[in-house]
């Protein structure tokens, strides 16, 4: 049985990589990938802790909820990115400076 510390360390590494992607990347799709990394790190933590809760199965159930939430976030985010690209012809967030026309 793998100890909890191993899971926590892997998910901390994945979280930091996602943070780096969000801050450093100049491409909206890569930023979305960074957010997905962070959500995946959170799901790994939920699942690793959920192993110790057999009565409620709360870890696994909320991991499933988190996966659904991430999927919804990606669908809406990509729709917004496509709209922004149609308007500005770029997906670099630094060039997108105004909210209204």
């Amino acid at each position: 049985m793998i100890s909890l510390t191993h899971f926590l360390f892997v998910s901390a590494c994945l979280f930091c990589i996602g943070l780096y992607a969000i801050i450093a990347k100049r491409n909206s799709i890569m930023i979305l990938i960074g957010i997905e990394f962070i959500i995946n790190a959170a799901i790994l933590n939920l699942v690793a802790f959920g192993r110790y809760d057999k009565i409620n199965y709360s870890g696994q159930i909320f991991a499933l909820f988190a996966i659904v939430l991430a999927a919804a976030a990606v669908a809406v985010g990509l729709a917004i990115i496509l709209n922004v690209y149609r308007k500005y012809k770029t997906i670099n967030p630094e060039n997108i400076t105004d909210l209204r026309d």
Partner: protein
Amino acid sequence: MELAIFYAFAALVIGSALLVVSLKNTARSLFLFFIVLFGMAGLFIFALADFVAITQIMVYVGGVLILMIFAFMLSNKELLADLQNTSSKFLSIPNWQSLLLSIGFLAVMSYGIIEWHDNFPQWITENIRQGNIIKSSDNNINQLGIKFMTQYLLPFEVISIFLLAALIGAAHLSRKEDPK
């Protein structure tokens, strides 16, 4: 043996995640993202969450990744030119500030994890003492179905409505507006 396979999966996940953020080419990053998600599904199995692993593969690899590749191809005219020029700088560092920030975060979190190490919270020690932990011989999917339909029925329904609303909203946002 189990530990060796776990380390292999962890190295796969972290290595390909590092490659995803360090490659210049977005198309390659997207396909490496696919490998990261598969590796995460493997790690979920090590945490005895087989149903979550299958859902991860179906939702992420079947849905999210296809969506991302579509969005990338619709929003990047230089895709073909981008694929042809292979960047010679493999591990380029675009800006050191963000690297410093994320390494700082990693340092703080690893310090916390090492300090925490085996001081489990009370509910974990209680459950270990009473034997209420999930074993590899348990029938997880059966239990999850029962829990979803009894104890967690309200969150389940709420998230169904939420997902429906989000998908309709995404379809509405990305439609072509007819010129008037």
